[in-house]
């Protein structure tokens, strides 16, 4: 970063101009003990909950436990600079982070400080907002009815996500959870051409908590390569950061997202992952001597996640009239929390908590992943409780029976392993199922537009692929979409704009199917 003497002088000039001879009166305390990233401070009588504290050496802390004769706080920086007897000062400010458009395209830490080496953010004091904010009330919300296209066929067709919804992504390690998030971010480019100034563009926030630094770098590089960074903010609190930073990062990200939501924009925020966040929270709370509960998590671990996820909402159009905090109505904050399970155990403490808070879950299974079904979505136990209303009619019509067909296929598949003589009806279901599974497979970083998804799924559900060899389905899919693009370019546009599949469109799709299929016979 270039540092010009003239700029320093200009800051000094401003300081001198605004200099006030008044004294600086703060509540102070003395450090009693410090260790493991937490500190106990005696004094600080006027200290507020979640207030930012200043320790010597520029180290900051957050007051979390206000007790009878001391204050327990977590340190947000190098604890080795703090020693017993040091003077601690209150700041009169609840822990806040910078928000606004200048964060787009940047990688920041849990305090909003840039960590991408691209210089400071251009933000003013007014851009700083507290990381804990109340969720919109009942009257300030409206039902979820607009789809958030992830670009992933299996999800958009069977487990649709609406803007303002909270959809959990759950699965063991190495099942493609982060890949699914990355694809969703890349797919948002279709909403506003990747231009963050376009009001249609969905803003994305990726919060990495307790992740490996290499994973974060990988995600950022992929997003940059795909041109998805201009409308994305990455909040990174990696495994090497203090536990306090790891658990606060989620709230910091939510505040950054809310700023856009309250200005009428659509935002999707991804918490990767809440299990590690709960572990970080447990560590901090145990060190602060809060009583441990089940699995040593503190008693408020449910509230930790529920108050975070409640902030996801679709604002009512008249929200600004009800509450002046909202500058424009109609904005949304969609939350995609991730929870990593151990050995597929969805009934563990944190997974069940988060399942109960969210509006549905996408379950990724390692067996499917290893069998080459990617994304490894288990359609049987994945569900979206409000997303159905947010699916465009065309998709609803075409993919309506998809879940049922797949469920029947899975059931019969297990059954068919015991006998070779199968009746025609069963064989038909098995053949159809195989094709559908093949159709729902999708490579990474290739999110698909909704109209393309509808055309491909129509090919499968209409039975058009039943007589095609399963191995040829991926090649067919490519050729079919290319054929549609070349010969019927209006079909895609019609589906996208009218949001329904008319008989005429169906006829054209059937024609195209018949034309492309002979190439793969």
């Amino acid at each position, binding site marked *: 970063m270039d540092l010009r003497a003239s700029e320093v002088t200009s800051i*000094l000039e401003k300081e001198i101009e605004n200099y006030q001879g008044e004294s600086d009166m703060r509540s102070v305390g003395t450090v009693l003990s410090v260790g493991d990233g937490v500190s106990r401070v005696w004094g600080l009588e006027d200290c507020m909950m979640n207030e930012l504290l200043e320790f010597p050496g520029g180290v900051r802390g957050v007051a979390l436990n206000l007790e009878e004769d001391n204050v327990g706080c977590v340190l947000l920086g190098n604890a080795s600079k703090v020693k017993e007897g040091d003077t601690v000062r209150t700041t009169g400010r609840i822990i806040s982070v910078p928000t606004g458009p200048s964060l787009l395209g940047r990688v920041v830490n849990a305090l909003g400080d840039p960590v991408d080496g691209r210089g400071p953010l*251009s933000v003013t004091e007014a851009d700083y907002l507290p990381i804990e904010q109340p969720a919109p009330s009942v009257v300030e919300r409206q039902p979820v009815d607009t789809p958030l296209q992830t670009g992933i066929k299996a999800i958009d067709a069977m487990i649709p996500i609406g803007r303002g919804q909270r959809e959990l992504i759950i699965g063991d390690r190495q099942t493609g959870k982060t890949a699914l998030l990355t694809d969703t971010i890349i797919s948002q480019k279709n909403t506003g051409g990747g231009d963050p100034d376009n009001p249609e563009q969905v803003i994305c926030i990726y919060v990495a908590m307790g992740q490996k630094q290499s994973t974060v770098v990988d995600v950022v590089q992929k997003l940059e390569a795909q041109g998805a960074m201009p409308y994305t903010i990455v909040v990174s609190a990696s495994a090497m950061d203090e536990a306090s930073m790891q658990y606060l990062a989620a709230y910091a990200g939510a505040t950054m997202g809310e700023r856009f939501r309250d200005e009428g924009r659509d935002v999707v925020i991804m918490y990767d992952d809440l299990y590690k966040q709960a572990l970080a929270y447990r560590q901090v709370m145990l060190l602060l001597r809060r009583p441990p509960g089940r699995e040593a998590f503190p008693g408020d671990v449910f509230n930790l996640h529920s108050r975070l996820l409640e902030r996801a909402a679709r604002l009512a159009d008249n929200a600004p009239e009800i509450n002046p905090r909202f500058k424009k109505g109609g904005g949304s904050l969609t939350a995609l929390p991730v929870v990593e399970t151990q050995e597929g155990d969805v009934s563990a403490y944190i997974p069940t908590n988060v399942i109960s808070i969210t509006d549905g879950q996408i379950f990724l299974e390692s067996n499917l992943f290893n069998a080459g079904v990617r994304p490894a979505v288990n359609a049987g136990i994945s569900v979206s409780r409000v997303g159905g209303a947010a699916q465009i009619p065309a998709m609803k019509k075409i993919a309506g029976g998809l879940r049922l067909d797949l469920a029947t296929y899975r059931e019969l598949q297990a059954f068919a392993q015991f006998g070779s003589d199968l009746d025609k009806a069963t064989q038909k279901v098995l053949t159809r199922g195989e094709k559908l599974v093949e159709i729902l497979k999708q490579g990474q970083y290739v999110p698909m537009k909704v109209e393309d998804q509808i055309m491909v799924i129509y090919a499968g559900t209409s039975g058009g692929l039943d007589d095609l060899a399963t191995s040829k389905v991926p090649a067919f899919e490519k050729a079919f979409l290319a054929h549609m693009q070349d010969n019927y370019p209006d079909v895609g546009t019609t589906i996208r704009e009218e949001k329904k599949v008319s008989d005429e469109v169906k006829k054209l799709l059937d024609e195209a199917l018949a034309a492309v299929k002979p190439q793969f016979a």
Partner: protein
Amino acid sequence: MSTTRVDGVTRRYAGALFELAFARGALDAVQADVERLGRELSSPAIGAYLFDTRVPHAERRSKLEPVLAGMHQLMQNFVGLLFDKRREAVLLNLSAAFHERRLLLDRAAEGVVESAVPLGEAELSKLAAALSRVMDKTLHLENRVTPDLIAGVRVVADNRMIDFSARGRLDGLRRTMLSSPLPSAASSA
């Protein structure tokens, strides 16, 4: 200024003694006794013996009896109660806790004025009078010389810090400059 940290139990016991003494109009007498006991306990002969758990309880109690002789009846009852409840550790910081309550009653506070050069008596009392008005309490200040402040004074009283020092100003300026976006960064963003 007292820097002793008083624990919750001591504060509660001292509070009860204080209220009782106040209600009986014996506050000064009891406070004098509390301070005398505090001085006695700080002598190694009694202090070390009294809190040594290897010494039988009754023996420790009897050791304190000559000290208590002649003290106010309330004080004698108080110490007796502490021994009965096995709370003799309260005696350690009783004096500080009682003093805290007294300051609260008198709407007073003690504090330290740090300055780069020693302050005269007149300056100190002038400062105390001015700050007493700001804090709405009678301030009793003592002076401590801290050359690191460069100029001005820094007052720490009643868990508050009032910084009039050059060092404080420089630190504030440093913080502002570190958090201010440079004009070139703002225009390029």
